């Protein structure tokens, strides 16, 4: 066999569909399953056939039995899967599958995805930095990028992304300008809301580009601040889960099956109520650190960073960025590509 072999297009399609979701190693397992499955069906059919054949012949008389050659009658065993003189089963290694995926992506899909991404826009955007992806990228002995920045729209599509040096505004500014240019070219309305984890820092920058866009704080990050200030040791507390649940529910009002984050005054009252309830020392859940964090957070609440935009549908609210990242195929393809090259 020559060293360089290929894949049938059927398999390539399966690779392109599955790997963004489940990754190379799991796909390798799945492919293994497909092959073994096919092997087992053929094997079963063969043995059923043998069984019938032997049954049929055993009906013959004793005389027949002794006169014929018993050895010849028994059909051979079905070979093992890997047997090169038999079934010739062979599965591409995980490395080869990865190579195929990346090669096919680069040759056939990368341009398409880039163009596709450039045609997307949205009414509600959210942005976040992630450090994990950037930590995979190495250039000799130093890391060229400090973070990875992505913007998603309300349908959880990545509309722009880039590696940036650090979290500063200078790195993001040119991309925001490019985004504005895109909105102009597509003749779309500018987004009316932008969810970000550092709302009060980003607000200045974002409103300098999209003047009417409201910059809000991502609720996922906001609640995460509470959790972090409580620390891991608080998780042993019996009231921990109850407290977290009530705190989370305090942020929402349900009106006709829709979760809505109320306006600042009501929201403040609800959150403060939860804290008043658990202030009693018998719960032992509220620490000085948490109160300090709570005071910081109240500033954001009063300022209206959390509340929904007035008179706008709130089901478009974008929740935790991290969840979205995991489910976004496009992002994952990009992520894989950068790691393995």
């Amino acid at each position, binding site marked *: 066999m*020559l060293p*360089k*072999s*290929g*894949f049938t*297009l059927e398999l390539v399609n399966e690779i392109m569909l599955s790997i963004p979701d489940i990754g190379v190693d799991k796909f390798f397992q799945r*492919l293994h399953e497909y092959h073994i499955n096919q092997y087992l069906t053929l094997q079963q059919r063969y043995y059923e056939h*043998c069984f019938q054949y032997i049954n049929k012949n055993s009906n013959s008389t004793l005389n027949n039995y002794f006169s014929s050659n018993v050895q010849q009658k028994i*059909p051979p065993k079905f070979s093992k899967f890997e047997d090169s003189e038999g079934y010739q089963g*062979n599965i591409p290694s995980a490395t080869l599958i990865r190579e195929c995926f990346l090669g096919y992506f680069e040759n056939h899909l990368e341009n398409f995805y880039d163009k596709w991404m450039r045609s997307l826009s949205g009414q509600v955007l959210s942005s976040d930095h992630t450090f994990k992806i950037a930590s995979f990228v190495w250039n000799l002995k130093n890391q060229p990028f400090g973070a990875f920045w992505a913007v998603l729209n309300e349908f959880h599509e990545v509309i722009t992304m880039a590696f940036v040096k650090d979290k500063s505004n200078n790195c993001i500014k040119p991309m925001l300008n490019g985004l504005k240019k895109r909105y102009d070219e597509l003749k779309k309305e500018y987004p009316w809301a932008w969810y970000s984890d550092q709302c009060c820092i980003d607000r200045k920058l974002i409103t300098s580009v999209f003047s009417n866009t409201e910059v809000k704080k991502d609720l996922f990050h906001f609640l995460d601040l509470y959790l972090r200030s409580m620390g891991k040791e608080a998780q042993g507390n019996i009231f921990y889960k109850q407290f977290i649940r009530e705190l989370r529910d305090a942020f929402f009002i349900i009106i006709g099956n829709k979760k809505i984050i109320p306006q600042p005054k009501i929201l403040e009252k609800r959150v403060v109520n939860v804290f008043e309830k658990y202030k009693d020392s018998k719960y032992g859940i509220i620490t000085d650190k948490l109160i300090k964090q709570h005071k910081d957070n109240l500033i954001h609440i009063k300022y209206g960073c959390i509340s929904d935009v007035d008179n706008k549908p709130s089901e478009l609210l974008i929740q935790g960025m991290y969840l979205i990242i995991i489910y976004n195929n496009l992002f994952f393809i990009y992520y894989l590509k950068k790691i393995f090259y």
Partner: protein
Amino acid sequence: MEQRNRNKYSTKQTILVNTESQKIMEACKGDQVSRNISEWYHPPNSSHRLLIPNPDDDYSLSIFFWRPEKFYNHYVSTIPCITDSCTGKPKSKGWADGGARLIYGLKRNVLLRSWSYRCETCGKTFYAHDERVLQKLPNHVRLGKLLYLLKIYIIIIYNNIYFYFYNI
């Protein structure tokens, strides 16, 4: 030694590859173009109908033969040379040396055997599945790419897709 063995197909498969290649070679001798040649060879897959069980059919892989100037003679009367500037007419050399290649499939692998050519003006030898050749072929020949060869080649089949799905 073990590793080498693992990559080779069985002796029965070798005989199968050789006889089938021979058949196609004879059917396409000279300027002759035979229409009833299929690019695919599928094992008969009818052993379960025989009286005596025989697993040989289950063992053998399908083979895909690729010789565009014969199979698509109306559109590809002569194979183009791989170098862009070269205008010479490559001469056919015979089936690719070293037997068939292994192409990984979703449930069962297939084999690919392609024709080789030699261009005398630029002195290069190449296979019919070379990407540079494939890119010069007409679009409809390339439309239903069936096989994807790692980084280098893409192949191509339009009318036999149904067969392929059906038989494997």
